[in-house]
């Protein structure tokens, strides 16, 4: 029996999702016979951790502070072993721009993109470069906040007149945004557990033309197919790419890599990596593990065993 603190909630926009992930993780850990303490992360986090003195912290946080290395840094400082990736990998995954640069440097295909801080527009006249960017990326262009998980703030600009509004929306979530070439295709996710690649999940939205935040977390809004119905070599290639991403970003414990598969060209491209993928009923990592014969409790038990400091 291990004393495990499950960190969840917090103040990020993904608070509700994290509360769901955390509650499920807590249940699993209790069933495994651990001594479990749930902590809704707030101002008293350090005091609570000192008070509880867990042997392990299970980080079930998503989004800002929880997934970007901040909480991990605190846990390092307090000497508490924790689940998932370390500080540096969290930083690399949480910032889509940094992640894409690492992928590009490692020769991993990722959609062409440009990224800017607000200052580039305010002080360097980056707006004048928009036509050139638009020409190179082609419409539609996907505009995203660099740091936001889920799909909040993601807009599709169908033409040049949509781009400024999409940028304004994306800047609502942080000071860095990404303009990315739109890849039409099938939405794939490859989860990894300790460098072991799990079966590919395909997410097929029922009605929406976009796999959005709602579809992602609402049961019954999206059909998930696992293992995805893909040609064998595509499955193998997707898994191979996911492992390359894992290595390039330095992930540990577990992670999820999101890809697009364009059937016409047969091309696979990597959109992003998630250092702390969701653990809700609709989340893809637990689904993939299940398809690999690893049930939720076993999955959570293994993640705890993989903790590090």
């Amino acid at each position, binding site marked *: 029996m291990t004393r495990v603190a499950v960190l969840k909630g917090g103040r990020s926009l993904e608070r*509700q999702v994290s509360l769901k992930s955390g509650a499920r993780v807590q249940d699993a850990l209790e069933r495994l016979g651990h001594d479990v303490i749930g902590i809704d992360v707030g101002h008293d986090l350090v005091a609570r951790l000192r008070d509880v003195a867990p042997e392990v912290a299970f980080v079930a946080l998503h989004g800002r502070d929880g997934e970007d290395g901040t909480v991990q840094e605190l846990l390092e400082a307090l000497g508490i072993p924790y689940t998932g990736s370390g500080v540096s990998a969290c930083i690399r995954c949480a910032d889509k721009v940094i992640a894409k640069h690492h992928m590009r440097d490692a020769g991993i295909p990722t959609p062409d993109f440009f990224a800017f801080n607000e200052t580039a527009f305010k002080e360097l006249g980056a707006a004048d470069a928009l036509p050139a960017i638009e020409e190179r990326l082609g419409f539609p262009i996907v505009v995203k906040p660099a740091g936001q998980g889920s799909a909040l703030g993601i807009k599709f600009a169908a033409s040049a007149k949509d781009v400024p509004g999409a940028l304004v929306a994306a800047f609502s979530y942080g000071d860095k945004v990404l303009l990315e070439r739109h890849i039409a295709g099938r939405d794939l996710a490859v989860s990894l557990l300790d460098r072991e690649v799990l079966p590919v999940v395909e997410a097929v939205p029922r009605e929406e033309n976009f796999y959005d935040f709602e579809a992602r977390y609402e049961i019954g809004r999206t059909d998930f197919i696992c293992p995805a119905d893909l040609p064998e070599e595509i499955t193998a290639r997707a898994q191979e790419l996911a492992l390359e991403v894992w290595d390039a970003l330095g992930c540990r414990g577990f992670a999820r890599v999101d890809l697009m598969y364009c059937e016409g060209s047969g091309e696979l491209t990597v959109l992003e990596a998630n250092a702390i993928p969701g653990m809700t009923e609709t989340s893809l990592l637990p689904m993939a593990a299940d398809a690999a014969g690893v049930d939720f409790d076993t999955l959570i038990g293994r993640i705890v065993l993989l903790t590090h400091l």
Partner: protein
Amino acid sequence: MTIDDRDPRTPGEPRTMTSTPAPRQTSRDLERYAGLFAARTKVMKSSAMRDLMALTERSDIISLAGGLPDTSSFPAASFAAIMSSVAVDSTARSLQYGPTEGLTVLKRCIAEVMAEEGTFIDADDVLVTTGGQQVIDLVCKTLIDPGDVIIAEAPTYPGAVPTFCSYQAEVIQIGLDEDGMRIDELEATLDRLADEGRRPKFIYTVPTFQNPGGTTMSLPRRRRLVEVVRKRELLVLEDNPYGLLRYEGDPLPTLFSLEGGDFVIYLGTFSKILSPGVRLGWSVGPRPVLEKMNIGKQASDLCSSSLTQLFVAAYFESGRWQDYVHSLKEIYRRRRDVMLDSLAECFGPECSWTHPQGGLFIWVTLPDYIDTTDLLARALDEHVAFVPGRSAFLDGRGANAMRLNFSGVGEADIREGVRRIGEVVREQVELYGTLTGSHRVVAQPAEPAPGEFDSELANVLHLPAPERRRRTDAREG
């Protein structure tokens, strides 16, 4: 609805193992539950908004998002005295079931409240409900088959949206202007539907101090609406929670009193004149409809709380309910004025807003390149919240609008909250100016510069001619 519906506010405490461990969970649970869900759950909205709105309830947030009346001004001593009189005088009765249609003592109070607005009814004709919300649910339950048409206003009460969706209604929204629902647009829509061989099951309207629009249907429009529904034999659901909360102008007759009750189903509530905590509302309307609603209510909850019905009846017996409404009006009038002044001070000329003569809400329209759902994420960083306009539409409109509430927070918080929202709006207006090279952006949202705006989208709200920004030098006027 989540499967794990453990209260998220009680996490954090050590949870002990029970002697019978919960069944093991696998991701197959997803499919197992999803396979059991009714088709109507597929059209229920909307988790992103719900998750975002959940954040607005944090204690460190100034929330102009709620629709809460200020219950803190209710005197504690009166509350205690009324409660103990109920406890002593009606012990068994208050702890017992009551009739589905409600207790007679309460129905008499309801007749009194309606008379205050010039609407005279027979107390026997009232159906007491569990909040006004239940009336919306019961009307849908009584009238709506999947695919049936409901006519609503654009924007409409956000709380009605999930109800309409759960009955799988097709909702058509008719624009509002400063005189309320546009009856010309309504008639055109009815004609179009008639051509298709369809007719709406009912027309849902909040004619007085509309939520969220803040507008009030003018007397000529009320008369016209009554003519239209009489001629076409259509039902109206008149939702009137705020009618008694008028801060200026002359009271207007309810649609119910104008029409006579053949085609209007009236919805009233104690939530805004006394307390939403008592969960008591009511309906009056055509008898056959009310009878079906009564049966629907039996199926839902048998009866509303006897305890709170007796509480309200005892409160009315003390004879001071009008005084309390009067005191609320004083509080809300001041808060409304503070909010209007703050808007004039902190919001730029590219923004417009309604000037409600009563009620709890102001509807603000921003330039069409600002998406208020995204803006809310930014506003939450500044510890302030509002309701994004999208939640008042079923068709994706309203993206550049927001609803502000002035009843639920104090004057200082209203000033500070509006200032912070104004700041983030200004930030985005400037950024947009930088991005488009038009640093001083368009001053007339109602008359967009050609080519600059999608005029269809800009006109979509049909909202009141913008209350022009009141300059500091004009404010004494």
